[in-house]
């Protein structure tokens, strides 16, 4: 069921890049996010925090099994039920089972990329269980029958006017592109859903090993409602989200919102510690935590392990000029942008996303902003190496072999250079350079190379 469209990247991006409205929307939103991020880090020491965060995440990932079992013990003590799902199928089946046992017909769901990854909502809807996205961005995307195009701002590809039109068509609001108005309209619809739902689903930004807590960071309050207004609550998240101590949050709380939206702190930080206790008046009676692997543990012990450090802030998407021009949908994966170009082939197989690691100019802006110090563009390089080693593209191999042979023999290099310059205006050379010349002019080729000038002695 988990269909990876990423292998069609080349067709997908070509469709997106000609969409001027999309590019304008993305450019506006991402550049604004980049500016706010920069502004928000002026008052704290980013490099210090990043170093700390990287250390904590590295420790967490390298002791993943141990921390998970600690987390599991404490979460059980708090009254939660824990389920490990190696595959999306197992995770979906478990959630469906919980819903069926409790006669659930309406689920309110807050944001969770892992549920997108395992395609939980279409699955539950297919089983006749209405599942409503309550994060505003996710709600917009759900109304439009689309997928999120960004990790933290799912509807970033849409303008206010496009959203007003969508609301007008789908929920009958008047045409008004004022964000306050649109938010109020969404709230009106969603409040009804919160009141009548009998199950809630959320993700988790962090799992705390020493306490068994699931921590959710958000701005709209919908996650807090989704996790507390129904009797049954299911957390679906990735196994890599665990960190050792509650006090580690002091680092991540300062980094996450700033990296993501340029806020000092999000409006809500919820710490979930199990179901309602006897003396408590509200909260769910049952809490389930589904820990999804889906390819993550295959990274452990490899040179790609650091990719599991990711806290899904989305900063690398916002700064990425490739993302800015093609948008999230072009990647054909729930995880787009630089981190998506790593995670998609690493979790779901390199064969399923052979082009993504190459779809980067390696400018390194992603690595520069990553709050947990993932060497994103260097990871892309090492993936390229793996893909090339496994690939059988004869033409490309032939070209690189000959390029190498030429460069190892200075005489051959000199001759090839002379030929190339001599025939630079020929139709054949132009045709061979089509991927360049269809879009740009070639420079004027000089009659002599530098080394020819140097050797002739006329430079001294």
């Amino acid at each position, binding site marked *: 069921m988990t269909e990876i469209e990423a292998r069609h990247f080349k067709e997908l*991006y*070509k469709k997106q*890049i000609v969409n001027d409205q999309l*590019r304008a929307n993305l*450019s506006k939103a991402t*550049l604004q996010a980049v500016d706010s991020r920069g502004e928000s880090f002026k008052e704290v020491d980013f490099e210090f925090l990043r170093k700390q965060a990287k250390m904590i995440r590295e420790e967490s990932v390298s002791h993943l099994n141990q921390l998970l079992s600690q987390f599991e013990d404490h979460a059980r003590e708090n009254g939660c039920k824990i389920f490990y799902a190696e595959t999306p199928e197992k995770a979906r089946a478990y959630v469906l089972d919980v819903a069926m046992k409790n006669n659930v017909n309406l689920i309110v769901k807050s944001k969770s990329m892992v549920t997108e990854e395992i395609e939980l909502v279409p699955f539950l809807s297919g089983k006749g269980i209405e599942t409503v996205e309550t994060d505003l961005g996710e709600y917009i995307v759900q109304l439009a029958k689309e997928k999120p195009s960004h990790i933290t701002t799912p509807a970033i590809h849409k303008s206010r006017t496009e959203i007003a039109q969508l609301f007008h068509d789908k929920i009958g609001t008047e045409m008004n592109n004022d964000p306050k108005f649109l938010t109020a309209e969404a709230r009106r619809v969603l409040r009804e859903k919160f009141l009548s739902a009998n199950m809630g689903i959320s993700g988790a930004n962090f799992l705390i090993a020493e306490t068994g807590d699931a921590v959710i960071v958000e701005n709209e309050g919908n996650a807090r409602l989704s996790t507390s207004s129904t009797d049954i609550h299911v957390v679906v998240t990735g196994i890599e989200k665990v960190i050792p101590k509650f006090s580690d949050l002091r680092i991540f709380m300062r980094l996450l919102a700033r990296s993501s939206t340029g806020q000092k702190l999000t409006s809500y930080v919820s710490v979930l510690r199990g179901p309602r206790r006897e003396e408590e008046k509200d909260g769910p009676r049952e809490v389930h935590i589904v820990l999804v692997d889906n390819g993550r543990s295959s990274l452990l012990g490899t040179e790609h392990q650091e990719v599991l450090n990711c806290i899904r802030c989305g900063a690398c998407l916002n700064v990425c*000029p*490739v993302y800015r*021009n*093609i948008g999230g949908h072009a990647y054909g994966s729930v995880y787009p942008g630089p981190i998506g170009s790593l995670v998609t082939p690493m979790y779901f197989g390199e064969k399923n996303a052979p082009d993504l690691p*190459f*779809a*980067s*100019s*390696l*400018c*390194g*802006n992603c*690595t*520069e902003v990553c709050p947990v110090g993932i060497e994103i563009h260097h990871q892309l*390089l090492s*993936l*390229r*190496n*793996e*893909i*090339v*080693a496994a690939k059988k593209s004869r033409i490309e191999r032939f070209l*690189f*072999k000959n*390029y*190498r042979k*030429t*460069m*190892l*023999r*200075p*005489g051959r*290099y000199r001759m090839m*250079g002379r030929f*190339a*310059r001599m025939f630079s205006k020929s139709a054949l050379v132009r045709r061979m*350079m089509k*991927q*360049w010349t*269809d*879009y*740009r*002019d*070639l*420079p004027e*080729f*000089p009659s002599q*190379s*530098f*080394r020819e*000038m*140097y*050797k002739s002695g006329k*430079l001294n």
Partner: protein
Amino acid sequence: MRVFLFVPCFVDQLFPNVAVSTLKVLQHLGCEVLFPGDQTCCGQPAYNSGYFDEARLMAMHQINSFMPNSPTRNHYSTSLGKTESEFDLKRDYAVGPSGSCVAMIRNFYPGLLETDQRYSQVAAEFATRTFELTEFINNVVGVEKFSGKLNAIVSFHDSCHGLRELGIKDGPRNILRRIDGLKLVELPYNEVCCGFGGTFSVKFPEISVAMADEKLKNFSQTKADILVSTDTSCLMHLQGRAKREGFNQRFAHIAEIMAESIS
């Protein structure tokens, strides 16, 4: 101060004036400049395309071409037929007019060759002796030794590899400010990539030129006459796109601007 010129292959073949200017500037600053004639390509296109084995052989060749008498020299190398000087790792500098190619040597050769007993040590040392032209002038020669005169309004494009791999930011600007009559106008979003990216430019040309168009739009806003950079590769891409789209500003390597300002 003895400097061995590191001339990236496409500069050698397509933009010899950039190398000539680099030579002139270094000589003007009092350096003794040599050009090891066996050098070809640093291997970056292979490395960035995932062909690490090919890149490794080219890295070895590159090192050999600077150290023709070293025991590591392989049988491929053929000198130009004259006794070449040996690069002294303790004393000499390799200087090249490209942040990108210098980053290949400085940041990636050591990793690429670390498991090779013959090369690991020399690669690590060679990395520390290799400089991009503007950082060499700023960090080794002393920028105060340079001054020039040129009437021009220029904007500066930070190349990503110069900026993020080598940390070059103020150096080239410090140099440009020492040119009398030259006015520097900063480019909006000057840390955003121009879209060249080596083979990226031909693998995904539509994305590559969309990024170039953004850069050219920002450049036009500055009303400057010349876009200056430390990297000819970015400039080749931007100039090629600009010509195609009917822009008529000039694109020049910082070595060319420096050379013009002292002549």
